């Protein structure tokens, strides 16, 4: 997946003129940065690592937006923006459809008493055999953020040379297909 995306990074040094599409890419990236600040606030209870991640992401996106708007946005830079943003989308998907990120969100796995505190921590239902169940919160902020990031990705991709753009979009197609296959297979859910 990521290998397909990595191939699109073009030769450095090509500067892109200021166009509405470039401004759109900058605006979408900036808005996504702002939304990650909101996400940091929303996850204050999840620990410093999670909050720090959101704030670092916000900082990177705001910086990228400024560079897109004002700096010499090269193809290499655009490719990095696309790659980074797609990575964030994949991370979001993984976080909401698997329990891979639970340890970072304070979800413990040990179903035993331990230490002098004797805490019990579980990730699933108990008393007798059953599958874990979640009572998730509506991911409204995440959905809005991903939508904005996808717009930014599209805009950034549109600025790329035709061959690179095709590679990027083909890579995204493959990634999307893989995600749906994993969902159908029950890996994501």
């Amino acid at each position, binding site marked *: 997946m990521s290998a397909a995306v990595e191939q699109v990074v073009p030769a450095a040094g090509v500067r892109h003129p200021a166009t*509405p599409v470039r401004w759109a890419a900058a605006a979408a990236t900036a808005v996504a940065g702002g939304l990650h600040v909101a996400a940091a606030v929303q996850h204050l209870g999840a620990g410093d690592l999670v909050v720090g991640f959101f704030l670092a992401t916000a900082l990177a996106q705001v910086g990228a937006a400024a560079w897109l708007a004002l700096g010499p946005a090269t193809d290499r830079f655009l490719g990095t923006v696309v790659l980074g943003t797609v990575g964030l989308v994949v991370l979001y998907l993984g976080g909401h459809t698997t329990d891979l990120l639970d340890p970072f969100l*304070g979800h413990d796995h040990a179903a035993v*008493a331990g230490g002098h505190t004797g805490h019990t921590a*579980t990730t699933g*239902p108990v*008393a*007798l055999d059953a599958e874990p169940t979640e009572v998730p919160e509506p*991911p409204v902020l995440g959905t809005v953020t991903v939508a904005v990031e996808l717009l930014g990705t599209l805009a950034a991709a549109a600025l790329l*040379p035709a061959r690179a753009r095709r590679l990027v979009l083909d890579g995204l197609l493959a990634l999307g297909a893989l995600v749906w296959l994993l969902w159908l297979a029950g890996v994501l859910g």
Partner: protein
Amino acid sequence: MSNTSRSALALDRRDLLKVGLLGTAALALPWQGVLSAKSVSRISSGRIPRPYTVPFASPPVLAPVRRDATTDYYRIEQTAFTGQILPGVNTPLWGYNGSVPGPTIKAQRGRRTVVRQVNKLPAVHPTLRYTPWTSTHLHGMPSEPQYDGYAGDNSLPGQWKDYVYPNACEARTLWYHDHGVHHTAENVYMGLAGLYLVSDAVESALPLPRGPYDVPLVLSDVAFAENGSLLWEDNSHSGVYGDVNLVNGRPWPTLRVARRRYRFRILNASIARGYRLRLSNGQPFQVIATDGGLMAAPQTVTQITVGMAERYEIVVDFATVAAGQRVQLVNLGVANAPDYDHSGKVVQFEVTGDAFDPSNNTVPATLAPPHPAMALTAAMATTTRRMRLERSNGLWTINGKTWDDVEDGDYEPVFANPAPGDVEIWEVENSSGGWFHPLHIHLVDFQVLSRNGRPPRPEERGPKDVVYVGENETVRLLMRFSSPDGPHGRYMVHCHNLSHEDHDMMTQFQVGEHDADCDPINAAPPRSGPETPL
């Protein structure tokens, strides 16, 4: 490279579709858990009864094993057993004397009770693998610390302990439940909770509904696994929410009522679910008592908010409802308690034309002399303390501290150390919009002075021992700490979302001196071996 090849126009429909495949996945898949969260139980829906099809029942009343001139003696075994919450479905439970809820104890003010709690639970929880130590708290009773169910005063399986209750308080609805440190939520969810009613001369002189017209409503919510066992999920210690509402251990029951007034003693015994209750026909009802007993005057309302462990006694008049009509007590829900398909349903009243006893069918305008907690004024307070309830780095904390900090300090750290008889104001702040905290202060009855600077809700204008601290709310509480000849020592204060309590939103205060006679762990420890006669 031409501008055209770089323009947005170069993105054709096919390109958009390519991105759309990932986009739809990223936008849609995270929602599936939410959209399918209308139920939690994994058991076949056909095995869960339709709401209001199960007949109502009250918990049994426990008879004392012995009485003497001053004291009633009770014996309760905490056991694992298989019961049926869902008709025809066996569910492993833990209960007091094999009953969920446990049997009701009825006490008289001024007459002492001794309750022997015998821990006959398995040595290890069959699924969670923890040792099920228990510590029984009589919630609402100003007990001495060693009989208060202190977290740390734990009876291991095979041990027993005699809890002594002075019943020196005003008439009220109390409940006894497990308070074993770090496992309270699991133990209560499995069934370790029951009612304890204290009456007194003031209450007995009132013409309030009594006997069959004085009805307990113990509310809880559970979920079921495929095989009928209880399903436990505490959502990263945020709370346990079931999709089956129980009243006295029965799913959405129906109670047949006569066309007269009924007194309902409502207890929210849920782990984490708050309720906002109203009658389906919008009919007003009267709140006559709160956690600490009778209000000075009834409050007429159309809805009440009931946080975990709160008790409200209400009187509903069915005289205006035609025979044959059905009225439901429904749950409008509170913020941050997930609603499932039937979370809005609680209990149904089927009004009958049956003959009834017309006596004790009145709610007087004046119920009782002002409760001592309600007679306090803010000017009497000598100290104001502030308490922040918050989640920090994944832990539930009070002013940044947890019960682990108390344990690590050998049970010495205290949040406050009032002298017996002191009056204080506690200002409790919940600055989060993501959760609410019903704060329980042991030993005392308090008055809710204000909620966000405004007067408390009508139903809160009576003596309380739990206060609902909602999202982004600050409540001010006024209380007197015992008296020079009353109990002293260390008592807990904690969130009554039991998952929060277990992980680890609990601290303690100390009234007066802490000495060997009131040491909550060592003054009256649980005992092993054969029981002595009661």
